[in-house]
Every structure is written in C-alpha cells, then in structure tokens.
C-alpha cells in the first residue's frame, strides 16, 4: 500500500518505518543521507577530541589549548543528540515531524557552541542563536499552511500529483531550514568552526548540510 509516487528526485522507496501516521521512508536519496549522518554520529561517539595547538607567527613559540573534560563531555552529548536529530530528520515522512527534528537540530547546534569559552565564538553563536530561534516561525508556519490548504501533513500524500502545496509554504519551509541550519549563511559558522573541539564542532556543519539537502528534496517533490 505504501509506494512513493514515481518521478521523485529521491527515487523509489526501499523500505518504510511506520510510527502510526508518521511513516518514515528510505529512498536511495534519504538512505544515503541517513548513512552519512550515521557514520558521522559514530565518529563523534568513538573519537577523541582534537587538541588545538596555536603557533605564534614569526617565532618558535606555540601554545596548546586545554579544554576541560566537563565542557568536552557536554559538547559530545550535544553532538550526539544533534546527530540523532539529523538521522530522524533526513528520513522523516511527515512535514510536521520534519519541522520538529529540524528545530531540534538548531537547538542542539546552539548547545554545541555553548560549551566554547572564547568570546568571538560566543558572539557569533549569539547571532546564530537568534536566527535559529526566529526560524522556527517560518518552519512551523510552512507546516501549518500546508495542513490548512491540503488537509494532510504526510509527505506520501503531499507528493501526489493532484495535490498542490502553495508556493509560500515551500518558501517558508526552505527559509526555516536555512535559519535553523544556516546552510547557505557561512558567516557565523566560519567564526564558530574556528573554535576548538574538532569532531563535535563539525557536527554543526554536517547536520545543517544534510537537513538542507533533505529540504531540497521535499520542496522539489511536493
């Protein structure tokens, strides 16, 4: 009974995971995103953090940055949570569910940088945090407009040819994901990724890129 309408850019579904009305699906597209997120989550779980060494320019002095274990533990916890939210978001088969997990990605991203102590990183994270909080409005607004105009939230229904999702809902959805993940705006993220704590900090990039790739699939298929 479950079969994705043909002609989707994501390809045919390989298998589905049913949670009541929320039916997650793995197509070649979402499965590869899922595999990538899974690999990176495993890396975050098993790897030890980098130790950043700064070399003084023009001399032979260098200084190693020590990060307290407590901060690293929190960063790792948030990075794992972010990876799990990304896993759920990239295979989600329901628009509202996708919006929820995307906003969780945004919140855990803020959590990852919250453990950093340098001032300019926290300043950038503050701006980024404001955008991520504001972005929940277009994100859930898109789900609300879609539910009101089509009567359903399941992507399986929305992908059908007879159902047209209004342009403004798609635009709001993409805008919301842009704000949560900051995929196209690398301004604040360039500052953030200069922070020490390599595999955990990079989770911010990976999660936002994967969620952005997923929203492109959703917006093109609807």
């Amino acid at each position, binding site marked *: 009974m479950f079969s994705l309408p043909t002609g989707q850019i994501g390809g045919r579904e390989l298998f589905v995971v049913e*949670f009541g009305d929320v039916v997650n699906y793995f197509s070649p597209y979402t499965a590869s995103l899922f595999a990538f997120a899974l690999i990176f989550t495993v890396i975050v779980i098993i790897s030890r953090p980098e130790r950043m060494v700064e070399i003084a320019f023009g001399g032979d002095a260098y200084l190693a940055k020590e990060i307290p274990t407590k901060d690293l533990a929190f960063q790792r916890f948030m990075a794992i949570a972010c990876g799990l939210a990304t896993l759920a978001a990239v295979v989600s088969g329901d628009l509202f569910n996708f919006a*929820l997990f995307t906003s969780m990605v945004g919140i855990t991203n803020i959590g990852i940088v919250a453990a950093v102590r340098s001032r300019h990183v926290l300043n950038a994270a503050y701006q980024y945090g404001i955008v991520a909080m504001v972005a929940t409005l277009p994100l859930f607004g898109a789900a609300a407009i879609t539910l009101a105009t089509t009567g*359903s939230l399941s992507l399986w229904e929305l992908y059908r040819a007879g159902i047209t999702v209004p342009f403004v809902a798609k635009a709001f959805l993409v805008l919301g994901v842009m704000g949560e993940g900051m995929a196209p*705006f690398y301004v604040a993220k360039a500052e953030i990724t200069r922070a020490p704590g390599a595999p955990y900090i990079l989770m911010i990039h990976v999660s936002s890129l994967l969620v952005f790739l997923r929203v492109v699939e959703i917006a093109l298929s609807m």
Partner: protein
Amino acid sequence: MIISRISRFLSDYDNLVAAYAVLVIAVAVIGIVLIPGLVYEEEQLYPKQIDRASSLDPYDRGGEAFGRAEVAAQYPENSPYLGYVTAYLTPLARLMADETLHLGTTIVSHPGGIIDEILYNTRGLDTVAETSILFAAFAIAAYLFTRRD
C-alpha cells in the same frame, strides 16, 4: 561594486539577523500578496468538533470506555488500537468528568484523564520529538547556568 558591497555586509556576523530578517520579510510579503490564492481544504485529516456542553470539552472525541471512538487517521492500519485510547477514562477520571464540567480534562484526574488519541497514538513520534527538544533546551540552560566564568 554591488556584489562586493553585499559581501562586505554579509561578512560581519552582526548583520546576520538583519539579513535573515530581510529574507523573512520578503517571503512574508509575497505570502500576504498570495493569500487570496490560498483555499482552505474542507476535508481535513484531523477534524475537530467543539461541543461546549461536554464535560471533556475541548478534548472530547466521544466513545465509551473499552469501546471505540470514531477517530480519523491517515493510515488506520498502522494504529490497531485506534479509538480505544481516547475513549478510556479511569473510574476516578470518569467520576470527575461526570460530576464537574472541566475537571476531567485536567491533571487532577490523571493518571488516566483523557489522553488525546492524535497526540499519543497516531502521531506519537511528534510528541516524543517535542519532549526531546524540551529536554535538550533544558540541558543547555542547566549547563550554561552552572558553568563558572
């Protein structure tokens, strides 16, 4: 010229919120212009009747305990106990619902006050995700509160 000016504006992260706000306002204006084209779909997936006289208002979806209530779902075959969840009330909750107007819906009559079918059965994964978001937010707040500097 114009590109270098834009890129200089964007390279300062203090302008990030402004840039995002401009985007949101632009799309919102387009959305307001397009409002006449949006038609409300009458066949909603999750219909809702408000019965002000019911003691379980506004959560009343009908049904008797151990019987089925009529609840719409996108994929009924995925929810074999559809309709049983919302119909059941514990005896205490049933007493409160019968005796008072609104107490049956409150936390007072828990465990087993009215449990919404859509929140906890057909769309249960959404509820799990919402709680996870709250938990992550609380964890961040607690961490920031206890960190010393």
